């Protein structure tokens, strides 16, 4: 599963898509809209993507993870559009025989998503909004 979607992300679905009978370990990462940032209350976030390129970058990253022979399954789903506080923006799931590989690949994937994939978020507050530029 490699998805960029406007509908809410179902973590169970992302996780289920990687389950493998040989897998003893799964790691799921969820990125969620926080209620505040730098002490300011967030009303909602607007996510925008360069859809075709984002999909292609995700596919490329997933291929890189799959190329490492110690990963049995990987899935990534990113939501775009308007997200409320508490909603899931991104989910990454990895299945591997043992936990070190599962943790490592999941962490690598979310780091790369945040570093490379052309998706942007705008934080909207009561009194204004701004595009986020840092990588937290």
């Amino acid at each position, binding site marked *: 599963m490699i998805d960029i979607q406007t509908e809410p992300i179902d973590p169970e679905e992302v996780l289920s898509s990687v389950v493998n009978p040989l897998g003893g370990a799964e790691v799921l990462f969820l*990125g969620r809209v926080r209620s505040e940032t730098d002490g300011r209350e967030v009303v909602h976030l607007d996510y925008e993507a*360069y859809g075709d*390129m984002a999909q*292609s970058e995700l596919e490329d990253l997933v291929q890189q993870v799959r190329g490492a022979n110690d990963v049995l399954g990987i899935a990534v789903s*990113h939501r775009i559009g308007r997200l409320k506080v508490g909603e899931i*923006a991104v989910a990454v799931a990895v299945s591997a025989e043992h936990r070190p590989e599962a943790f490592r690949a999941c962490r690598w994937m979310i780091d790369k998503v945040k570093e490379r994939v*052309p998706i942007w*978020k705008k934080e909207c507050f009561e009194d204004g909004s701004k595009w986020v530029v840092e990588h937290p």
Partner: protein
Amino acid sequence: MRILLFAGLAEAVGQSQVDLVQGASTQTAGDLEVRIREGYPDLAKSPFRIAVNRVYAEANDPVVDGDEVALIPPVSGG
């Protein structure tokens, strides 16, 4: 040549794409960047990378007519 803009760059210019006449001075992604920064004062100092056909381009990667060119401001997904 049509150039796609996103996020803060699209807002800065007020539109989601701009047009650039291609010619001898726009053979590479690096050339394009120079032309864009000169031609659009709103983008002169904005940080961005150039993508050609949905792949991040290096400065000396060639750009030809018909390529899908986009300006990618610092990403913030997740």
